[in-house]
Each structure stands twice: as structure tokens, then as C-alpha cells.
């Protein structure tokens, strides 16, 4: 049952977007996010949509997958839209009832926020769909590495993230085993009131924690035996190479930002 969980939801492929340098992908996603909030005309929304759609097409990932990523956030989207609808002022009043008032400005604002957030979700999903968690970790480490000069633990953070990623499947497997073991001892984990079920979780979490500490201890010994001594003087097997694709993608994104600024 726990095995079905996918982390990071990476879909391997060799599309244009997949083959971009992960560092560039992160930076492009950041530029894209900022740009979305610069434009506040309908034409800028349309341009934003076209840009996002182009990126999606180049990633060869089915649009269905993006719809799936938006679905769980639907309640949040609706609440945002409703709030904007009633609380934004401006333009003519379209509807009024007691203290509730909908203005043209409110309708505009609510559509704007809705589209912006959807584009934002699609854009960031695109990053995680096309980049493996391990590449993401790597890219984050390298992007943050200039900060390590000021004492920011960029290597340590990345190492922690990559070890966490490495141990997720192992711990899921272990949790499955503990659940079976506790069930065999008569634990009722999926029946009873909410309280009993929460209490049942304790009988899973405690063994899981204890074994995780033991694992951590053994892993630390194994890492030390392989000469691990922090990020200093380390070289990397995983090489990140900037190619013409990255320049194309950045140019395209900056062009997009330029147009949005121009259109306003």
C-alpha cells in the first residue's frame, strides 16, 4: 500500500526540457514566477499562457499530468478566487447584497489570480516532473555554494537531502514490515475510532524511529570509512554541463519577461 507513493513525481524522458541543466531550470522557474506577477493586463496573461504551454509541449509530458497536479489544490484556488471576487474594489458594481459586493475590478482580479496560480503550479510541476530529485538536490547545492563562504551549510544541506531521498524507499519498506509485524501481534491499525488509530500509529512510529537511529549510526560509520570529511575538497561524478539548449531556454524566458514588461 505504501509502495505506491511516488516522491518528487519525476517522469524520466529525454525531451528538450529534461535535458536542460537543472541549475538553469531552477533559475528559469524563478524568473518565470516573478514575471507572472509583473504583468497585469489580459494580454500578459495570454502571453504567460502561451509561454507555459510551449514549455509543456517541449517537455513531452502529457497535459493530463498537469491537470492532476492542479486538482488537489482546487479548494485553495476556489477560496482565493472567491476572496478576490468579494474583497477587491474598482470599476462598476455588478452585484450587491447586504455587505457583499462584486465589482468589475473584483471579477478581473479573481480571474487574474486564478490563472496566475494555475500557471505557477504548472510551471513548478514542470520543474519536478522533468528533473530527478537527485539532480535537483545537486543543482540546489551548486546554486547555494557561493553562500558557503559566509558559513551557509550548502553542502551539508544537499547531503542531508540526498540521504533522505536515498532512504525514503528503505524506510517505506521498513514501515510495511513493522505494520505487518504489529498486525501479527494483534494490533488493530485500520479499525476503531480516530483516537485508537492514532494510538496505533505510535506502535509503528516508535520501532521506525529506533531503527532509523541505528541506520543513521551505521551509515555514519560507513561514510567515515569511505573517507567522508564534509564538502571540502570534494570532486563530483555527476557533472553538470551547460549546453546550447540552456542558452536557448534562457533567451526564450528573458524574451518572455521583456514582452510582459513591455505589455504591462
Amino acid at each position: 500500500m505504501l509502495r505506491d507513493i511516488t516522491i518528487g513525481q519525476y517522469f524520466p524522458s529525454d525531451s528538450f526540457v529534461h535535458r536542460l541543466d537543472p541549475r538553469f531550470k531552477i533559475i528559469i522557474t524563478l524568473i518565470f514566477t516573478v514575471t507572472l506577477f509583473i504583468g497585469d493586463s489580459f494580454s500578459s496573461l495570454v502571453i504567460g499562457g502561451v509561454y507555459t504551454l510551449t514549455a509543456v509541449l517541449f517537455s513531452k509530458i502529457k497535459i493530463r499530468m498537469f491537470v492532476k497536479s492542479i486538482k488537489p489544490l482546487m479548494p485553495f484556488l476556489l477560496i482565493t478566487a472567491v476572496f478576490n471576487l468579494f474583497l477587491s474594489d474598482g470599476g462598476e458594481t455588478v452585484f450587491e447584497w447586504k455587505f457583499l459586493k462584486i465589482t468589475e475590478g473584483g471579477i478581473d482580479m479573481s480571474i487574474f489570480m486564478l490563472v496566475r496560480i494555475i500557471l505557477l503550479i504548472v510551471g513548478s510541476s514542470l520543474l519536478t516532473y522533468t528533473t530527478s530529485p537527485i539532480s535537483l538536490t545537486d543543482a540546489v547545492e551548486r546554486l547555494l555554494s557561493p553562500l558557503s563562504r559566509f558559513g551557509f551549510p550548502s553542502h551539508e544541506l544537499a547531503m542531508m537531502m540526498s540521504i533522505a531521498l536515498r532512504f525514503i524507499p528503505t524506510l517505506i519498506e521498513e514501515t510495511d514490515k513493522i505494520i505487518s509485524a504489529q498486525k501479527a501481534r494483534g494490533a488493530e491499525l485500520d479499525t476503531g475510532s480516530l483516537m485508537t488509530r492514532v494510538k496505533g500509529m505510535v506502535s509503528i512510529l516508535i520501532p521506525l524511529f529506533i531503527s532509523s537511529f541505528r541506520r543513521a549510526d551505521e551509515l555514519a560509520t560507513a561514510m567515515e570509512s569511505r573517507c567522508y570529511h564534509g564538502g571540502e575538497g570534494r570532486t563530483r561524478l555527476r557533472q553538470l554541463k551547460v549546453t546550447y539548449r540552456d542558452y536557448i531556454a534562457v533567451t526564450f524566458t528573458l524574451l518572455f519577461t521583456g514582452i510582459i514588461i513591455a505589455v504591462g
Partner: protein
Amino acid sequence: MDSDIIIKINDLHFSYTDESGQLPTEETLKGVDFSVKRGEFLAVLGHNGSGKSTLARHLNAILTPTEGSVEVCGVDTSDEDRIFELRQHIGMVFQNPDNQIVSSVVEEDVAFALENMGVPYDEMRSRTDEALKSVGMYEYRLHSPSQLSGGQKQRIAIAGIIAMRPECIVLDEPTAMLDPQGRKEVMQVLKRLNRDYGITVILITHYMDEAVQCGRVAVMEKGRIILDGTPEQIFSEPEKLIKTGLGLPQATELAWELKKAGYDVKFPVLSEEECADEIERIINALQH
């Protein structure tokens, strides 16, 4: 120092200190004198609590002696300044394959030690590939370790050590958590590394069948080495082994039982083939 000797242990005593820093009354290692020659394939046998894992952890300075000294490749393990140099000479493989694999990609895990040592990319690439090939896992280089079997994971862990090009590998019960197939794979890899690359192998185990395949066997009990010799020598005195509670390899035990029953069996026999040949010979002799 004799250049043929890779590990030299002098009167090693060791006690685990408890939380308050007090030494317990009973030492874990009570004076181990021991040396290993370059290129040897050595098994250290012993029961749980015999001190064999503690001994192994002294070899790459995870633990340092309370008394006495351990010298590996001419480096004293108490010398903290040379600890990384030492750990490049002597690789360590542990029991649980899951808890020693660091990366989510096989080849990156194999390269982990090289990354730590700051090996340049081109050399790292070739050494990683070579190490993966030497354990027969090259085609799995881009897999995730969680997709592999226990035996395969343990071979990856061994490859991660091989990539360092150590002179000696210490394996602390590497097959304890594996199925028979996985155990066989690991043993084959170790034998090949010893034979083809001349790497000294020290195998800590409690499987008799594995000890038989080694060139030299040392038996530990209660923090001391009580027997040390070739498998033939060790298993020719079954009473001593049985007294320690270790038992004999199956084939050896069968031959011993036959011998006790009065049959003229060559003793000790170490392999199943040898045992089968002996039994065939006896049957033929009885028929004529």
C-alpha cells in the same frame, strides 16, 4: 618492518567505555597478537560477542586500542593525522548493505569515496566503471539501489571500496543478511578480487562454509584468537572447534561422523566434492 606484512597487531586490548566514561570489568579484546601478510585471504571466525567485529573496527581506526597497537600498511591507527590515508589503504564493508549505500544512483555510490578523496573527474569515471565491472554490476550502474537484491547491493558496497584501490578489504559479516544465492555471489567476487587483483581480504564471518574457502582461518573466542592456521589445520581438530560452539562445515562434519563410526575416511575433507569422492571410495572398497 617486514614489507610483506600489511597488518600488524601487538597485544591489542580494548574495552567499550560506558556512558559515564567508566571502563567495564571485562575487556572486549584481551590481548590480540596477530599479523596478516599481503595478498592473504583470511577468515576470522567467532561467535556473537567473541570480539571479531570489534577487532575489524580497529583495522580502519573506527576504534583505537585501549592498550597495545595496530599498524596497517605502516600507519599506526592511533595517528589521527593519517586517518584518511589509512582508510584509503583499507576498505571496510559492513553487514547491512542498506545502511552503507549513500546515494540513490548505483554509480554515484561507487564513486562516493573517490569524490571524498577529491579524485579528478576523468580518473573517477574510469575507476568507477572498472570497480563496477570487477563485481559484475556494470549494467546496473544507473539503477537505484532500492531496485537491487541484497547480494547485488552488497556487491555495490564492495565496488565502492574497490574504487578506492585499497590494498586490503575488511568485510564484517557481509553475507549475514543475504540469501544463499547472494552469499555465493559475494564469495565469488571476493575470491576473484583476491586472485586477480592481489587484494588482501579479511572476512569476518560465522559461516563455516565460507571459512573453508579461505586461505587462512583464525578463530576468536572471548576476545582472544584461539586458533590460527590453514583450513586443513583448523578443521583437523574438530573437538576444539566444537568446544567453542562453532561446529563444522557440513561436508567436514559428515566425514568426521563417518570416521568416528570407524570408516577409513581421509580427514579433514573440506569441500562437498571431496567428501562425495571419499564416500564413493569407501563404498567401492566395501563392495570388493
